[in-house]
């Protein structure tokens, strides 16, 4: 009930700012385009047309041109976007769940448990993420499930940190102390009192994490360890385009631009969410 009122305020403040509106519009459009677009296009993402190879944008009805075996680039970018967005969102949902549980436990239980968890988080964070990612990718069999798994594995720590810091903060609020003083079980204190109050911060962190996860997926696929051709992803489109960088630069420029724009928009959305949620914290 009050939760509804609070989210109503967040929505109003989100849509009052330019960043919030633009990022929401962009993300809405890109999601629609990636998931519905391929059905509306006359060309399939894997239909080869050897008579029309390396077409520049806007030639012969190919809005973004074609690649080295005549596949429509727009169809491939949209199809690849579907994979990239799925990896970004699914791995973020998973890593947010892991991070929230780990962070909340660390924040709620001072002493040994917290020390252990913080040590693990700090140790994992010590490894350069890309290095860890590539090691895992090289060992495991490539594919959608694998890439979601490894992106999740290297990105739960950020949410865990946010959840821990927030839990420490909320735990000592008087309304939590009041419920502790009633003799409520830990489970109830965590899920009914603390979690709803740290959820906004976790959502912001998760939104920013989507941007990071999309970037990580692109990176791994670009290096050839992620999504494998002929299936498209934003990363392996870039990989493919390397060879033709000088002769047919749009093959690299277009997917690169879409990745950069999408990542930037998720970051803008995260920032706008943070702004919109911050005033509600005081209440």
């Amino acid at each position, binding site marked *: *009930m*009050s939760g509804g009122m609070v989210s109503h305020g967040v929505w109003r403040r989100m849509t009052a700012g330019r960043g919030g509106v633009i990022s929401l519009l962009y993300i809405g459009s890109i999601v629609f385009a990636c998931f519905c677009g391929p059905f509306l296009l006359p060309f399939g993402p894997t239909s080869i047309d050897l008579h029309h190879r390396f077409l520049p944008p806007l030639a012969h009805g190919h809005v973004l041109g074609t690649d080295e075996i005549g596949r429509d680039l727009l169809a491939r970018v949209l199809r690849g976007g579907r994979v990239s967005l799925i990896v970004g969102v699914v791995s973020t949902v998973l890593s947010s769940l892991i991070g929230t549980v780990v962070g909340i436990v660390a924040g709620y239980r001072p002493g040994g448990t917290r020390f252990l968890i913080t040590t693990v988080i700090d140790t994992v964070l010590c490894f350069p993420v890309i290095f860890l990612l590539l090691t895992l990718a090289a060992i495991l069999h490539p594919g959608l499930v694998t890439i979601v798994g490894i992106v999740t594995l290297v990105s739960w720590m950020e949410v865990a940190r946010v959840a821990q810091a927030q839990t420490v903060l909320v735990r000592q609020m008087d*309304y939590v*102390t009041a419920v502790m003083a009633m*003799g*409520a079980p830990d489970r109830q204190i965590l899920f009914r009192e603390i979690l709803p*109050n740290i959820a906004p911060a976790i959502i912001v962190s998760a939104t920013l994490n989507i941007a990071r996860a999309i970037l990580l997926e692109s990176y791994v696929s670009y290096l050839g360890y992620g999504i494998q051709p002929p299936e498209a992803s934003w990363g392996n489109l870039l990989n493919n385009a390397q060879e033709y960088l000088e002769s047919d630069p749009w093959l690299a420029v277009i997917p690169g631009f879409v990745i950069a724009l999408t990542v930037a928009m998720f970051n803008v959305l995260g920032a706008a969410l943070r702004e919109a949620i911050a005033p509600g914290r005081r*209440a």
Partner: protein
Amino acid sequence: MTGPVPPDPVPLLSLRGLSKTYLRRDGLLTRPRAVAAARDVTLDIARGEVLGIVGESGSGKSTVGRMAMRLLEPTAGAVHLDGADITHLSEQALRPLRHKMQMIFQDPSASLNPRQSIRQILTTPLRLRGVAGADATQEMLETLALVGLGPDVLGRAPSTFSGGQRQRLSIARALLMKPELIVADEAVSALDVCVQAQIVNLFRHLRDRFNLSILFIGHDLAVVGVISDRIAVMYRGTLVEIAPTEQLFRRPRHPYTARLLSAEPRRGVLSAPAPPATPAGQHAPDGCVFSARCPHAADACRTRQPALAPVAPGHRAACIRTDLDLEGILPHSN
């Protein structure tokens, strides 16, 4: 001001020599220093009694209140509830006893979960007691009426209430646990004078109606004096004097109490006592905590902290200058 004289041989709550010491590090390279937030605090609360604790900010009032509630682990000493030592009970073992003591906090804006409606907030204690359905609603409405609120508040969010109303809601939440003791930690300090009086009256009414014991913590002697049967005065973590309210006002036995009383205006505006000249915990290590600011300090005062000793029936003070005739704010009875 004159409450029931405690007839019960076993006090509801008894604090025995409670101390809390924090290690504080002032700089990166300095050795941590032990700061006593509370030192050897001993006091009893009878059933149906309102015991006030006064002292300036940082004197350890909240520390004592939280240790009494077993929300803060004491460094030394014991807490007895209903004659049973609960100091070392595990959280698990404590749970079934927790309902007996409930707490009201100072900051009205932080004491209600901002993400829950009032109905959800008030359901929490009822569910813990196993009350549900129509019984729960009935009890909720009765309790709301008791604190002066109507059924229309149930659907609202905490942010839509004034400070005074939020304190009423906190009190309702506490009452729904059917407590025997309420620790009110500066429960009216953040409110307007007029609202303060209403909430103090509400506490008094609840004490009379349910024979509740109340540990009423405040920094304003005038407010605490209105409701308390007895008053305990704290200074820098030490309990320096404890006496029935009237007796304390008539004839304080500790120079610090006298100082607090003289700082109170005789009538009208309420005011807070003067802030400490030095941070808490920086008195001479061995001397009386108040010796540095005491106008009556003798040489012996700078060598050791006197224990709380009886000076009159029901009246104890931690001062070796028993010869002093300090001035109160009520006329001497003879």
